[in-house]
């Protein structure tokens, strides 16, 4: 730690600092000045501050290209092109989450809501930057606690409280597992930094304590990414939480969690991979994740078929998508990391847009059942078109971002063991499951485009700014699908530089 002043640290953590300060500013403005103003105006101002802080932070990272030396601050804060890029992705997602919140009337506590949104974002950003077990745990908790409160934010709705309690109880349990796993890891290696841990584990083989550490850690993260069998909270949380909160759980939080999962596995447990190839299984974290991925894809897709509420459907589809993304983690190579980031970021963007449309419908209809979407294309053509883009992207139809994401992940997975096509079985399973998924996404679109609306349903009109936000997300999904190189090029370069 010698030679590092507080000023240097502040400079390195400037984006996080900006966002954290913005949380305070939002609180201050809303509580101090805006109290008597009208609800809509308050939300606009708060969202504006939130969005601006995200933009400033992105701009800062873009302008001030910093990099930390390896081992700097024991990996508490790793700043390199890759983490910067992922953080920018997270910030964009937060920006849009704030954007789609401006029409939501579920709470009067506008300031607190946006402040929590920003605090959760700070948690994500530190999580992305961490290569140190302590820091990982702390930022994970900051993120989780903010999300629990955001889930419970609709005080008028019993479901919201129930969802939050479920989320909290499961989350608390999972945190305990994570902590247990991490402490075992520390005990085994005497270090809390990922790279030294891997160095210490090298050549030791898979002893029972290490196996326990791996399993515990995976349980903890599996909860965050809602992988089967740690997914039970997800459908209720998605359904009960206020829609913008659910959007954050599904988007930004997923990106950060997947990134850190990939990092812990690939960096921390390097040397304990095992083998997930067909008929060549060897124990380690790769086959463990492979099994989890298979069950996530299976259960997520099959259970989604039975849903009649769009938010629950999105929850199960999120479980399935978690399964696909796990394929990218278990490739255990650079291309896999690039594919993982591309996949989760585009997925998050898509699902965020979908939640935006859902929130508009929910605001008018009170719920998000299939029947509330019936005939939407005649009531709100623009929003329906956006929803079509989001649903088809989730189903993996080109030329949308979701298709290229899946293609990238699957290619990386097959390519990981190119000699014997060892992971092809997983990819075949994933592709088969994604064929299943088209069915339920089309069910939603069928309601929107084919079904006739019942007579009393009103014309749905979102406010202009909200509509603009959703259209912007849809345009992004389309653009990323048509020109994937916008992200893939930068990503590949950053990953090479990061020496993952």
């Amino acid at each position, binding site marked *: 730690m010698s030679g590092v002043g507080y000023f240097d640290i502040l400079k390195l953590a400037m984006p996080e600092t900006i966002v954290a300060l913005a949380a305070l500013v939002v609180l201050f403005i809303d509580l101090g000045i805006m109290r008597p103003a009208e609800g809509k105006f308050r939300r606009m101002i708060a969202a504006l501050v939130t969005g601006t802080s995200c933009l400033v932070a992105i701009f800062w990272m873009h302008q001030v290209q910093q990099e930390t030396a390896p081992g700097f601050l024991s990996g508490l804060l790793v700043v390199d092109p890759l983490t910067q890029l992922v953080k920018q992705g997270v910030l964009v997602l937060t920006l849009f989450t704030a954007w789609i919140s401006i029409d939501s009337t579920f709470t009067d506590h506008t300031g607190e809501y946006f402040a929590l949104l920003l605090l959760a974002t700070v948690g994500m950003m530190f999580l992305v930057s961490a290569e140190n077990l302590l820091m990982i745990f702390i930022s994970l908790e900051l993120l989780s606690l903010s999300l629990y409160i955001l889930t419970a934010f609709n005080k008028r709705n019993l479901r919201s409280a129930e969802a939050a309690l479920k989320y909290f109880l499961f989350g608390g349990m999972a945190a305990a597992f994570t902590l247990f796993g991490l402490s075992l890891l520390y005990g085994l290696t005497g270090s809390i930094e990922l790279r030294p841990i891997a160095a210490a584990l090298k050549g030791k083989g898979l002893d029972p304590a290490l196996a326990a550490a791996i399993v515990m850690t995976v349980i903890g993260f599996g909860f965050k990414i809602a992988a089967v069998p740690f997914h039970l909270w997800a459908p209720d949380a998605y359904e009960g939480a206020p829609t913008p909160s659910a959007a954050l759980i599904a988007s930004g939080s997923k990106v950060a969690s997947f990134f850190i999962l990939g990092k812990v596995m690939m960096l921390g447990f390097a040397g304990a991979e095992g083998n997930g190839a067909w008929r060549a299984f060897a124990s380690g974290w790769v086959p463990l994740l492979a099994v989890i991925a298979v069950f996530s894809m299976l259960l997520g897709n099959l259970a989604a078929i039975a849903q009649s509420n769009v938010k629950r459907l999105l929850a199960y589809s999120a479980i399935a998508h978690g399964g696909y993304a796990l394929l990218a983690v278990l490739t255990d190579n650079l291309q896999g990391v690039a594919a993982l980031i591309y996949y989760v970021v585009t997925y998050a963007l898509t699902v965020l847009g979908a939640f935006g449309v859902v929130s508009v419908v929910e605001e008018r209809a009170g719920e998000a059942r299939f029947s509330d979407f019936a005939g939407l294309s005649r009531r709100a053509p623009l929003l329906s078109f956006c929803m079509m883009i989001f649903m088809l992207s989730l189903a993996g139809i080109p030329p949308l971002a979701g298709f290229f994401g899946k293609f990238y992940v699957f290619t990386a997975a097959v390519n990981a063991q190119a000699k014997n096509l060892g992971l*092809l079985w997983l*990819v075949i399973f994933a592709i088969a499951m994604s064929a299943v998924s088209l069915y339920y996404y089309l069910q939603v679109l069928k309601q929107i485009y084919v079904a006739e609306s019942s007579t009393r349903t009103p014309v749905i009109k979102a406010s202009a700014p909200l509509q603009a936000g959703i259209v912007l997300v849809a345009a992004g999904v389309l653009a990323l699908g048509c020109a994937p190189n916008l992200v893939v090029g930068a990503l590949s370069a950053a990953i090479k530089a990061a020496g993952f």
Partner: protein
Amino acid sequence: MLGWTIYISFLGVAVLTLLPRHNARAARVVALLTALTGFTVALVGTLKADAGLNTFCDVSWVPALGIHYHLAADGISLTLVLLTGIAAVAGILFSWNIEQRAKEFFAFYLTLIGGVYGVFLSFDLFLLFVFYELAIIPKYFLIAIWGSTRKEYGAMKLALYSFVGSAMVLIGIIAAYVVAGAKTMSLIELAQYPFPEHFQYWAFPLVFVGFAILAGLWPFHTWAPTGHVAAPTAASMLLAGVVMKLGAYGSFRVAMTLFPLGAKAWQMPFATLAVIGIVYGAMVALTQKDFKFVIGYSSVSHMGFVLLGLMTLNEIGFTDRAHTRELEVLEGMDLTKALPFAAGTFVVASAASMGLPGFSGFVAELQVLIGAWRSFPTMTVCAGIGILIGVAYTLRVLQKAFFGEVAAEVNPRQTESAALSRAQPHGLEPISGPERIGAVILMAATLVIGLYPRLLLDLIAPSLNSPLFEGLRRAGAL
């Protein structure tokens, strides 16, 4: 130049979305203009093209994965692009009466057309797959929104069958890409890569069947009858005339070109399936009461010929595969309108369909049978029987619908749907001017190709000598 067929179609979609919502007339005109321009471009492009491979556009798309945006055309692509152009124009003329949500109808329609053009012109596997999937989704909406009998069921079945097929193709593509070193997606470069034999043995059937599902390969054909029955006229025409060709084209362009050894090994099983399809489709068509079911099953039977042509693995057989059957397009016309003009049209179409000399159907089937005789005589005889049954059901339908008593028999579909109490008013509207024009265009094309087949054969044959088919030639196929 030919790439503009794709862009124009999508441009048309963009213009359509900007139109006011209730102006059906404007939507029609825009759609027709788009399709006409697309067809003109296709025609001019074909006339200008060389005998070999014409590349219009080849830029790096995703360098990290070696994906290129590569549009090109050889004789096979050219014929199919031309056919698509004709069918697109005719389809719009046949949909002239659509008033309900006309703007959306034509937007989905042109998206489908653009995707189909794209498939025929792509020489990069990734790009080809993108366009192929792009063509699936509009079909769902076209049938589910504007269709009739059990439309939602038919549409979903069609979409899921197509998607399962393309999932199989995707597996094959990714595996082939990785095995070849994960450096390129170019069809031309991959075609020259010697894939290991054991790999071809399982990759070929995967990709072949994946595409052939869309071509109605027995026993994966069940989407076709329900789809045809449910689809609105124009969509049904496109299904039979263009979309099913997409499947056959993919089977040939991707599966057989990349995995010639696999094709050789699987020749017999797939030829058998194709012959079963021919005979089965014809026999089932013979017993149908519903007119559109007859069309649906006959299209299965006809596509059996195309697939059989492919599996002959020799040149004569291949030339047929692109040797298209506009008559199927024609058959898709809504024949529930039992009116003089429709009768005349249908007589021509069914004459062509039965394979009477002088129509394109005759030449095409003859080509396949000659090709097939060399490879497997027994099956050729069975396929010949299929033609006979084809004559039988066509005559039966003709007789019942147009020369029979004006009783309940004339329009069995009407009584059926009445019995099912579907809210489907089937008034005997007179055939409109645009529909007449559309039918004439199709009939003319059928006749021209039938009387002068060299027009297409000359286009197709040289492209089989290109280095693209080196593998197939080496496998002793060509």
